[in-house]
């Protein structure tokens, strides 16, 4: 194994930063799509359910790679405007992982007891209020483990962008391999880099999950804090919950 020079390491580290950015932006878009489509699929109007179902089937059934190519290469020809490769990638990943995520949202929403909705009706909440105040907060903790899976899938899926010349980890690795002619060290290193990133995501989602469950009284947060401490922890939870619902895919 030949030593990697500092310059080559820099290439990998800046690639890691691009990978992180891609993951965060795609996850944010994916979360918006997942909640939008997932909730639309429980709508009382059939046309809304139909259209959202159609979206889900189309974007779940098409390859993210092909979609990315389509957005990058076909869009300019067809409509005359060119997306930056990074944003074409974010769009493709966000739209397709959002389609997967919408099933997670739909399932978790459907799993909330119908009696909760009935209690909402009995208090004359509007359907939107029932969703926002009653259903989603209870469904949210159930979404986190499957979201974690999708998030890690997405992280690894970002490697597709290297094909379009976006300088992520995988792109850096292929440059180094071409330059040094050696595959083993560089691919071993990026294997570990992806693993470390995925591990960090998983730990983060664990924390989010624990706080979310505490927020519906399922698993009280760590003891030792007084009432005030608990309150501030809960408030923090709410913020974390919101923040991650925007990046939860």
């Amino acid at each position, binding site marked *: 194994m030949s030593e990697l020079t500092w310059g080559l390491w820099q290439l990998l580290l800046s690639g890691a930063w691009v990978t992180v950015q891609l993951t965060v932006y795609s996850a944010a878009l994916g979360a918006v799509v997942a909640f939008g489509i997932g909730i639309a699929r429980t709508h009382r109007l059939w046309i809304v359910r139909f259209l959202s179902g159609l979206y889900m089937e189309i974007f779940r059934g098409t390859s993210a790679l092909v979609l990315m190519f389509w957005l990058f290469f076909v869009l300019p020809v067809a409509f005359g405007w060119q997306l930056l490769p990074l944003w074409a990638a974010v769009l493709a990943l966000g739209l397709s992982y959002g389609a997967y995520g919408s099933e997670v949202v739909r399932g978790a929403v459907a799993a909330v007891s119908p*009696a*909760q909705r*009935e*209690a909402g*009706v*009995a*208090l*004359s*909440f*509007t*359907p939107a*209020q029932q969703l926002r*105040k*009653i259903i989603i*907060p*209870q469904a949210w903790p159930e979404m986190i483990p499957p979201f974690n899976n999708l998030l890690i899938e997405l992280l690894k899926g970002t490697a597709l962008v290297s094909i379009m010349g976006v300088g992520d980890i995988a792109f850096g690795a292929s440059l180094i391999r071409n330059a040094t002619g050696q595959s083993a060290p560089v691919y071993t290193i990026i294997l570990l880099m992806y693993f470390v990133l995925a591990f960090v995501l998983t730990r983060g989602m664990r924390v989010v999950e624990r706080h979310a469950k505490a*927020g*519906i*009284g*399922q698993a009280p947060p760590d003891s030792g804090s007084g*009432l005030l401490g608990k309150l501030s922890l809960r408030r923090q939870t709410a913020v974390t919950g919101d923040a991650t619902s925007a990046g939860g895919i």
Partner: protein
Amino acid sequence: MSADSNPGNHTTEHTNPTADGRELIRFDKVTKRFGDNTVLDNLDFTVAAGKHVTLIGPSGSGKTTILRLLMTLLKVDEGTIRVDGDYLTHEEKGGKLVPAGERHTREVRKKIGMVFQQFNLFPNMKVLRNIMEAPVHVLGLGKDEAEQRARELLDLVGLGDRCDAYPTQLSGGQQQRVAIARALAMRPQVLLLDEVTSALDPELVAGVLDVLRDIAHTTDITMLCVTHEMNFARDISDDVLMFDAGRVIESGSPDKIFSDPEHERTREFLSAVL
């Protein structure tokens, strides 16, 4: 008590004046089917304002269906329901009755509160917020006013010290008392009680019934109650309706129904449950 939902008609213990005797609830030829099973068959009945009416009868006789129709958790197949003169799920347009929009129904429904067998508190909200949420976001009450009222109601049901608990940290009886406070916080004219003690451990039943007795005897809220607690029914009711197979087969004062029922079916039922 503080849940004096019909202002101007303050009452004393053990009198349940009928306000002006106006009809608060009216079922006109209501039919409800589940598949081939007709649960309510051309049902007519009325409840006057301020009355406490208890529905009894064998299970499957349609008692709970009546409450769920009133709460619009189920749809009527035929007939109409009126609450305080307004059609619940219909609107008059050009002299014709047409199905009403969601908004109309929600407005009429605000006059009705319901307590469920399984409490159905919101597990994602602490006790105080369970009670405050609807008054603030549905009735548009100020936060301070809603909170003060929520605390008064919690005191009334004997849980003034559990404001900051999550529902899962309470016993079934405590949860049910919070659910009663939550329903009263909306100042409904009618309170629907759907077998509210059926899911409770026996030793917790008395606490919940005491709270309801208190409410029945000190406010002029109208109550429509499905229960298997016959002593409670006798205690609070002005009228008892005996249901069987989707019809009211007998009605009258609790004394009459429980002591001297006319129908054989009522006698059978009472001897089975008493």
